[in-house]
């Protein structure tokens, strides 16, 4: 994930490009499915899916944020 974000970030420095390229990884459907399971009464499945989705979201944000910070460190701020 870090390498993916880094590739796209170094190619073109646009925030929207990162989001577009990261879209298949982002757990939007996973969170919706988790809440759907929780509403229909399958609490164990819903909670495990929700925690998985939150961990994936944190991992994606850490990957992108780390690369953004490295870039900031090297170039000394844009």
């Amino acid at each position, binding site marked *: 994930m870090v390498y993916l974000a880094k590739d796209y970030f170094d190619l073109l420095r646009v925030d929207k490009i990162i989001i577009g390229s990261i*879209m*298949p990884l*982002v757990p*939007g459907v996973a969170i919706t499915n988790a809440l759907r399971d929780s509403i229909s009464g399958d609490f164990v499945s819903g909670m495990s899916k929700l925690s998985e989705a939150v961990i994936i*979201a944190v991992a*994606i944000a850490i990957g992108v944020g780390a690369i953004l910070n490295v870039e900031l460190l090297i170039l000394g701020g844009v």
Partner: protein
Amino acid sequence: MNLLTILYAFISIVGFAVLFNIPRKAILLSGIAGALGWFVYLIFRTSLASNIFASFAGAFVVGIMGEIFARYKKQPATIFVVPGIIPLVPGYGLYYAMLKILEKNYQEAVSVGFEAILVAIAIASAVIMSTSCGRIYKRRLKLKSISK
């Protein structure tokens, strides 16, 4: 209201349907269902200016169309609904909130993240409601066939 985004939503849904290994005869129909849902979402978002209710209405239309197409194609409704709600789910909001947390911009993180969670709850309840609508219709059909 940009009507060209409906076409973009259709293309993205078809792409995600291929990514999710949807059966081939259901791909185009799931794209149509999702494009209709996106159209309803656009109408409600521009007329009510409420992102959450617009997502609810769009996901409800996607669910109803999924039920109809499921009856028509004899496939489970989930394979039409899961790609169909792709343009509505708050993946961007979730990512943006996490990024704002890493940037220590907590106020924006909470506002964006809370709206993302509310949109997710709205979509989930809309899908549940459309599924129960399909179940009620099925039960009425069964009752009618028994009473005959």
